[in-house]
């Protein structure tokens, strides 16, 4: 390992290509933290946006007019506004309205930190698209299949959980994966409210080292690889979910 680190130090000395996070321990720790913050933020948002999508699509099928209206209003607001504006709205508008709590240094801090707001904001953002994606899948489930479950005495909730959702899920996986890939890329917006994710940490490093070009190239490749791995995993999952003899 040390040998590789030294190689990059020499690379810098010989060519001027400066990748300090590969030879300097302090910068390396920053980059590692940024990497894991991005992963963690992505996972949290993936999870909650999927939950929002599933529940939202279920509520959209409600027989109460106002339930449907509220869900549709939520979708319109979050789909038709820029995610950065949403993030600022949560962090600066809602965040400042909430009570503050005493912190360890004798001062006061907001009740929710920037990571929590980024997670909430991005989950709602991606969740709005997920509701629409799940709804399209639910509509693709044949009414006759649902009827068969009704005739067997399944309750509405059982039908949704055991029949509609598993079938809809397989239909929407490609669209869902697309949205989730977008979500992972959108986590870079958390940079704007100082969540120490990859882009933020890269900025810290280039501010100290004045190596903007190198950091930008690195970031581009880092996200390319990260999302590439995600897409590969999703494609495997799509294949694994295929029902023998069903669909194309």
């Amino acid at each position, binding site marked *: 390992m040390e040998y590789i680190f030294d190689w990059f130090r020499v690379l810098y000395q010989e060519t001027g290509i400066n990748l300090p996070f590969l030879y300097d321990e302090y910068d390396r720790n920053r980059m590692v933290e940024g990497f894991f913050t991005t992963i963690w933020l992505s996972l949290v948002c993936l999870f909650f946006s999927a939950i929002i999508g599933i529940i939202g699509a279920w509520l959209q099928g409600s027989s109460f007019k106002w339930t449907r209206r509220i869900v549709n209003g939520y979708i319109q607001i979050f789909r038709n506004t820029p995610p950065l504006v949403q993030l600022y709205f949560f962090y600066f508008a809602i965040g400042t309205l909430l009570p503050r709590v005493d912190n360890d240094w004798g001062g006061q801090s907001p009740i929710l930190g920037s990571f929590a707001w980024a997670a909430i904001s991005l989950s709602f953002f991606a969740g709005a698209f997920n509701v629409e994606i799940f709804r399209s899948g639910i509509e693709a489930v*044949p009414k*006759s*299949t649902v*009827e*068969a*479950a*009704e*005739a*067997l*005495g*399944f*309750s509405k909730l*059982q039908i949704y959980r*055991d*029949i509609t959702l*598993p*079938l809809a899920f*397989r239909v929407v996986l490609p669209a869902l994966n697309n949205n989730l890939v977008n979500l992972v890329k959108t986590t870079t917006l958390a940079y704007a409210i100082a969540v120490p994710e990859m882009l933020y940490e890269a900025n810290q490093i280039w501010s100290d080292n004045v190596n903007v070009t190198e950091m930008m190239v690195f970031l581009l490749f880092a996200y390319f690889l990260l999302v590439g791995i995600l897409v590969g995993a999703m494609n495997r999952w799509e294949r694994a979910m295929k*029902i*023998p*003899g*069903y669909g194309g």
Partner: protein
Amino acid sequence: MSWTPAEPMVSIKNVHKSFGDLHVLKGISLDVMKGDVICIIGPSGSGKSTLIRCVNALNDIQKGSIKVEGIEVNDPKLDKLQLRRKVGMVFQQYNLFPHRTALQNVMMAPVRVLKQDKSIAEETARALIKKVRLEGKEDAYPGELSGGQQQRVAIARSLAMQPDVILFDEVTAALDPETVGEVLETIKDLAEDGMTCILVTHEMGFAREVADHIYFTDRGIIVEHGPPETFFQNAKDSRTKEFLSQIL
């Protein structure tokens, strides 16, 4: 609610049903005793399928009364679950759950709806699959089975709920001629076991063989009915005669 086997198991009285302006059922009455096998025949669009779909409340009715073991179906406070535990249904398009194997299709409702123990439900399901002569196909998905095989799984799925009466909605209409026989054979076994069956069918030979009573419907009313021998040989109504002359 105090129904005794001396009374009709299914009692349909003066039933009217409209889809918007389309008046589909115009006062239909018929009784089915326990253990009876009745066949409803008639031209397309005469309301046969609609009628049996009303019996398990998949369609509601505007006027009249349908009683299943004393339970009034045309009642806003109807407990559909209770009704559907008594009434099984088999559909023209099988409507199996495509993401579940044959065995799981049969087990699912007993486990979910009747809260049966999984191992007991599986044992019953295996026995039913054997009964419909599909041993060895337990782990096949519906998409891997032929139409006739799927329909027999659908019959087993319906039987797993231990209904008191089964509705068959043109269950052979979507099948290849070669596989019609195997499905009819299965239904015949059921009838011989004493299962109460209401069939909508175009299989006249089959109707003549297994039915206790035949009803001929046209344009929303019962034109003529009787035991198969008299019905097929001495039809009195001109519409019945015309229909039979086209079919036989």
